[in-house]
């Protein structure tokens, strides 16, 4: 059985092509905008002093002589700094802080989603707001107090100290994402688990958590992104013993520093999360975020 098309009379072919042209035009324009800094950094990383000072050029061999100085500098070559150590430090701190934040944040989020709390005049919504509002404070406000606190605890310039601070920064994100997510799981499921003999803690671990994977992935993603990319706290709370990646790269940022070392370091430091973008997209396309985003 064929249906009559529901369209009004077909659109004129001219306007159809125009629309397509606009659509892909915009997509290509934005793609160029996105790729632009990366391409430039890539090109620049293969330059030497001549390549840079002779003006902006793009094509190796045709417009400038490529050199591997930039990439050599990554491992302690001239003009650069060994970024292996900071790289590893960043990984540890980011993963550690994210793990703790997600754990504590998810637990808190479940409590806020399912039960009622009252402390003086504070209610669930207020408590949730309290968590989220921690993000409002700009790093500088907290920088000095954190500095003093870590110094008192003997945790300055250490991985543990950074993880401690990052937990306070990342937990609000985990709470934000997970409260929303848990609210989208019907309470009937919890109640069914109760009827089947599960107390709230068992319900959480055996019934709700297995169904919370999409939310956890989203929370994890945001925690990792914000953790890996922090600059300011790493900047003020570490010096020589412990260095995180963003700090070690920005340290290269002065007009004297060779652009090639800068570009190479920058590209390498960004790589891991770019891979994350692939993971996120796959997850997104599989409908993974459907329950996680309100």
């Amino acid at each position: 059985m064929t249906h009559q098309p529901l369209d009004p009379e077909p659109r004129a072919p001219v306007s159809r092509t125009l629309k397509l042209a606009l659509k892909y035009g915009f997509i290509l324009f934005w793609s160029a905008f996105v790729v632009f800094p990366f391409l430039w950094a890539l090109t620049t990383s293969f330059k030497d002093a001549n390549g840079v000072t002779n003006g902006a050029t793009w094509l190796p061999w045709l417009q400038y002589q490529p050199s591997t100085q930039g990439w050599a500098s990554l491992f302690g070559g001239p003009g650069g700094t060994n970024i292996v150590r900071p790289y590893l430090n960043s990984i540890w701190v980011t993963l550690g802080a994210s793990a703790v934040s997600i754990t504590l944040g998810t637990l808190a989020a479940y409590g806020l989603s399912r039960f009622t709390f009252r402390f003086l005049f504070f209610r669930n919504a207020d408590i949730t707001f309290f968590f989220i509002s921690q993000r409002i404070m700009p790093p500088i406000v907290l920088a000095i107090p954190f500095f003093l606190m870590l110094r008192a605890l003997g945790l300055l310039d250490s991985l543990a100290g950074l993880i401690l601070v990052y937990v306070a920064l990342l937990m609000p994100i985990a709470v934000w994402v997970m409260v929303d997510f848990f609210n989208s799981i019907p309470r009937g499921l919890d109640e069914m688990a109760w009827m089947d003999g599960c107390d709230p803690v068992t319900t959480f671990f055996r019934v709700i958590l297995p169904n919370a994977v999409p939310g956890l992935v989203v929370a994890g993603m945001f925690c990792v992104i914000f953790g890996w990319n922090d600059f300011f706290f790493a900047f003020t709370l570490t010096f020589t013993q412990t260095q995180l990646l963003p700090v070690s790269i920005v340290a290269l940022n002065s007009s004297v520093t060779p652009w090639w070392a800068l570009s190479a370091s920058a590209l390498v430091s960004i790589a891991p999360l770019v891979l994350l973008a692939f993971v996120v997209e796959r997850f997104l396309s599989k409908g993974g975020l459907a329950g996680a985003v309100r």
Partner: protein
Amino acid sequence: MYRQKYLFLTPGLIALVAIILFPLLFTIRVSFSGWDVYNPGLNWKGGQNFSRLLADSRYWAALGRLSVMAVGTVLIQYVLGFALALLVWRDVIARRFFRVLFLVPMMTTPVIMSVIWRTIFHESLGPLNPIIRGLGLPGVPWLSDPVWAFVAVMLVEIWQWTPFMFLLLLAGLLSLPSEPYLAARIDGAGPVRTFFSVTFPGLAAISVGAIVIRLIEASKILDTVYVMTSGGPGESTETASYYIYIRGLRDFQIGYSAALSIVYLVIMIVALTVIAKLLVRFLVRPAP
């Protein structure tokens, strides 16, 4: 009967309060002191810092700039992010490739990208001006002109954070039910009408969440300013965060910068709460 509920909330809450409470209380206390290079330590200066703050036009200018930048960039990010999400939602070649590509900037470290952008915006050695000249327009004194520097910072912000809006809105689009669209087609609604009557309202809740979160993050902007312009030229890209940084960690006027921070915090909380409530009122439950 439900006493276990405390098991859930308290670990996280206590951890957060423990880590944040001291700094917060400390900052409040310090704001009443005159801690600086010459008088280190917690003395008591009463409300002196606050009265100085009220007369500090540089601070208020910084706040104003910050507001313009934050609101401006977030709005642009929202519109662009929405457009991009709609474009790669369906019926596009290499849809998944573009989706990955559009996500990438958000995954990068803002500071590090600013380092690269700084080389891009360089007037003589950077690649941007040659392109502009190639289009027949005069070269732009990016980082040495107050207005253009401001624009440059905004451009970087937009490049960096549009993917955030893009991600959330795309996720929202992908989880929209298809029935309203069918109904709209039957009613003969064209694409524009369908967008405003079906798509936009369906994403109202996510939009509010995304905008508020982005506003919170955008107002903290510091990394880009620090690396690219150092607040300059002059004070043209000096945001509130940067000014607090100058007073606090550069001039080492800890007491004063604490006062600046506290006032900033209060203003932000009030402003964001109001904005959030307004957005919910007008986007999620539009007036009939």
